[in-house]
């Protein structure tokens, strides 16, 4: 490791605030763009599964639930 | 290719080509305003307006930096190795500001051709070297491109 201690790595010769802020914001943004589509797909799958179940449960195909 | 698709292809090429030309012309017309600063040669040639806020950028000339003994006032020269412009400034300097490094000073050019700066920004080059490598290169007498100093 380049730094002697955790303290030195956090401080980075006075530039620690800038470097760690930049990395933190980047990590949060990356997490957001990865997780958003996964959640969107899951939510949609759940919703559609419910619709199908209701449609299968109802004998009448025009029952509410099937839109 | 289907004629309808061919027609649409031409439409796409038309959009791409003509928007490029239009924006290219705008950029060409504004080229002077897009420059962030004047190089010292332009200032020496009288192309920079006097008495208006402008920016001048170049290298801080070696051995030109004079610091005041009792205040933050400094005086130095910005050069592009053809001409140089004297700059006076009082205030906090960026960490990277040093002789032989790039800098951009914003301020007003006075009648004597001295830039009275209100802000100094440091400009760095595209070279990234670890300190040990730089020191080793300096002691070997060659620069990072392998040329003799």
């Amino acid at each position: 490791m380049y730094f002697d201690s955790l303290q030195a790595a956090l401080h980075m010769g006075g530039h620690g605030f800038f470097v760690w802020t930049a990395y933190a914001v980047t990590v949060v943004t990356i997490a957001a763009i990865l997780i958003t589509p996964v959640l969107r797909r899951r939510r949609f799958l759940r919703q559609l599964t419910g619709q199908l179940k209701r449609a299968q449960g109802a004998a009448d195909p025009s029952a509410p639930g099937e839109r | 290719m289907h004629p309808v698709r061919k027609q649409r292809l031409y439409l796409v090429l038309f959009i791409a080509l003509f928007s490029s030309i239009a924006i290219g012309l705008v950029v060409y017309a504004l080229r002077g305003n897009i420059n962030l600063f004047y190089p010292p040669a332009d200032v020496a040639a009288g192309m920079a307006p006097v008495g208006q806020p402008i920016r001048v950028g170049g290298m801080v000339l070696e051995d030109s930096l004079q610091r005041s003994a009792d205040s933050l006032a400094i005086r130095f020269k910005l050069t592009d190795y053809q001409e140089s412009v004297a700059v006076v400034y009082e205030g906090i300097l960026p960490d990277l500001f040093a002789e032989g490094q790039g800098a951009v000073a914003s301020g007003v050019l006075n009648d004597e051709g001295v830039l009275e700066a209100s802000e100094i920004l440091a400009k760095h080059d595209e070279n990234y070297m670890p300190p040990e490598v730089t020191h080793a290169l300096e002691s070997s007498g060659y620069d990072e491109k392998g040329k003799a100093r």
Partner: protein
Amino acid sequence: MWPIFHKFGSPPWLYAISGAILRWLLPITLLALVTGMVWGLLFTPSENVQGNSYRIIYIHVPAAVVALAGYYVMAFAGAISLIWRMKMADVAMKAAAPVGAALTFVALFTGAVWGKPTWGTWWVWDARITSMLILLFLYLGVVALYEAFDNKEAAGKACAVLSLVGMVNIPIIYKSVDWWYSLHQGASIKFTGETSIHSSMLYPLLLMIAAFYALFTCCLLLNMRAELLQREQRTQWVRKLINEDVVN
């Protein structure tokens, strides 16, 4: 070439193949990102002039490079959807826009945070930074324009035209530091000529650039899959997929 082209037009095939690709690409991407970040933050030497603040390069440059490349992906997909009316190209264009916007935001934000300790300012209206801000607005414009239309076919066409018009901005961003006097320095990695960055700093940077390209691909595929399901919800293959899901 044409059979592949037709396969890309098939939603169930695209959904299946993207799932298979993501299963190995996503772990590799995350591993490369973590490795590159730890390497750049803790295991590279400091820089002679800038000290430790230069470590921001390992996220700033990859984000900017991929934000530019991603715009070409978006505009290319838009052109295909305009010419061939290929629905999957429209899906790809819509999927690329938010990812590109996020990467452009990362490049601008890390640039500002890097600018303060080195240049002495968070922001300056020089050619590189301003044209990068325009790129952010172009990406956000495509996202907003798509949402503004109720008719999604018209939305796709309008977005495709907007991305094509904005394409001229990419070479401007790229060449801005050569064409005009700017505060931003020139490129350190060059396709022709010497690279002016020491190898101990270059290798982690190249790793991070590759990782960000992979990240863009992952996000593009994830967005496309979510969009595909939604658009194709009434079709047989989606029903089948969900029935299998229910049984499992």
